């Protein structure tokens, strides 16, 4: 007890020999160790094993055919048309979802950044989709798109968007729009919340000064709001894109990657290969490829960020 006193009196000396140093160096690890151990054992070690799987043949359906195969899995990937299809689909899925989520989210954030009647209630209601379990979002949207019990095909047919009320999930040309719509519904609150927080951090005086100087609302949006939000927007959008590229739940439940692989993205391809085909080696090779794509993307992100900060 007394040493604790002394520590404080002397302002926690960084002496290498006292009990003070011991506490100073060791105590944080006491608090951290459960978290670090669990992350290492449940995430980092399996990650290393997963990377090792990608150069092995591990198929639960062929238990006698296991072992090191070098880059065979990757060579197979190169010839796998399903894989390249999934690669382009991943791009469209991510691009479509992020763009729509962002613009709708920005609109919502701008609306909520100014006071109006019933704002608190509105805020609670429009953020609700974030809390809905993802499997339920997927099921709900596939039901909404089903002409038997869902209204959407009938509305679209009435508006002339569809020739007749059919299920867009069963048509390879339109199927990707289904999961994207569900994802937009789910993701708008996320962008709205983060952008709203950023909007509220812009000093009010700036807008008042602009107003006195006779700036229009559009001018204060483009000259004050956007430059302020710019860097934050860039980072949020780019990080979110990584998350969405990895996000398999919606597509897996809504279409399972079909019809004819038209909605198969890399993450659903990993899951179906591991879960349905039980081919762990090949699934891991796809996963490593996805990781590679994400790393390249992250490198571009860091480069862009460095440029943004410089100018």
């Amino acid at each position, binding site marked *: 007890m007394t040493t604790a006193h002394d520590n404080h009196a002397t302002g926690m000396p960084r002496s290498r020999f006292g009990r003070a140093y011991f506490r*100073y160096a060791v105590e944080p690890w006491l608090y951290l160790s459960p978290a670090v151990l669990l992350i290492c054992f449940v995430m980092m070690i399996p990650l290393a094993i997963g990377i090792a799987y990608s150069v092995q043949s591990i198929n639960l359906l062929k238990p006698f055919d296991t072992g090191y195969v070098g880059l065979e899995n990757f060579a197979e990937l190169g010839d796998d048309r399903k894989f390249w299809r999934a690669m382009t689909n991943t791009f469209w899925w991510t691009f479509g979802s992020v763009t729509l989520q962002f613009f709708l989210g920005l609109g919502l954030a701008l609306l909520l950044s100014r006071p109006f009647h019933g704002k608190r209630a*509105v805020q609670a209601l429009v953020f609700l989709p974030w809390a809905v379990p993802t499997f339920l979002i997927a099921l709900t949207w596939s039901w909404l798109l089903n002409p038997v019990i869902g*209204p959407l095909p009938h509305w679209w047919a009435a508006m002339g968007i569809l020739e007749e009320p059919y299920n867009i999930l069963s048509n390879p040309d339109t199927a990707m729009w289904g999961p994207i719509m569900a994802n937009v519904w789910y993701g708008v609150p996320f962008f709205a919340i983060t952008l709203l927080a950023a909007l509220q951090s812009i000093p009010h005086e700036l807008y008042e000064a602009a107003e006195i100087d006779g700036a229009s609302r559009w001018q204060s949006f483009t000259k004050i709001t956007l430059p302020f939000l710019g860097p934050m927007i860039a980072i949020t959008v780019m990080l979110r894109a990584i998350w969405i590229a990895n996000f398999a739940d919606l597509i*897996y439940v809504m279409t399972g990657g079909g019809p004819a692989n038209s909605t198969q993205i890399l993450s659903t391809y990993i899951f179906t290969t591991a*879960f349905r085909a039980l081919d762990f080696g090949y699934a891991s090779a796809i996963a490593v490829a*996805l990781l590679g794509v994400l790393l390249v993307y*992250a490198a571009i992100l860091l480069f862009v960020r460095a440029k943004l900060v410089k100018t």
Partner: protein
Amino acid sequence: MAARTRNAPVLSAGKYLAVAFYVAFALFPLYWLLKIALTPERLIYSDGTALWPSTVTLDNFRTVIFASDFLGYFGNSVIVSLTTAAATSMIAAAAGYAFSRFAFRGKRWVVVLMLLTQMFPLLMIIAPIYKIVASLGMLNSLTSLIVVYTAFNIPFATFLMQSFFDGIPKDLEEAAMIDGCTRFQALRKVILPLTLPGLAATLGFVFTAAWSELLFALMLINSNDAMTFPVGLLTFVSKFSVDWGQMMAAGVLALIPSCLFFLFIQRYLVQGLTSGAVKG
């Protein structure tokens, strides 16, 4: 000199219209879920796409609750989500406290480790985890799910707890320590009561995440007794895909816990999402 357009009636009407659009967009799918769940089975095909059900019944809910396995799935999910939330919150509180109060060698590396776990595709480890869990003989056990979910949620929960601890002045525990408390006593008696709202919010975030996790549960659980709600519902859908009313009634039931927890954590959404709170 032109009159400011800020209070022009047209503009404010447009604004309320936009607000109405967002509210309708957010609520319509949920309304539809509830509507079909309340529609009697014999009317599904005639009433299916009508905006308003002509008759309302609770039969679907009754069947789901009393004549199916959903209550069991629901119970499994509650056990898994609550235990995960409690374990994660405790572990993350300790780690978040260390991040907030200590400057120590290696801190940077732990932060990098935690950020790294948020970046790589989680599906990368689904096969190794299956193998490990299988070799431990723990397939189809809720414990394995709890351990896996706890680890997945620790990083963001730690950053979240750190932000709550950062909001509490250091002077408080220093004063307590000068008065003779050890650091742990100060933490327990002075700091913890002050972070209770933050701890509750973390609990809520983790619960919501664990409640909706599907893919690892599909991989690790295939016995009916150990299925969590998402797995049970999905199995039900693929087996009896025409019992629309019952499926949606089950969906509505799955929605209830998340909505409750959502109300609970609503105030902390900004803090939670900026710490990287994601589901699944």
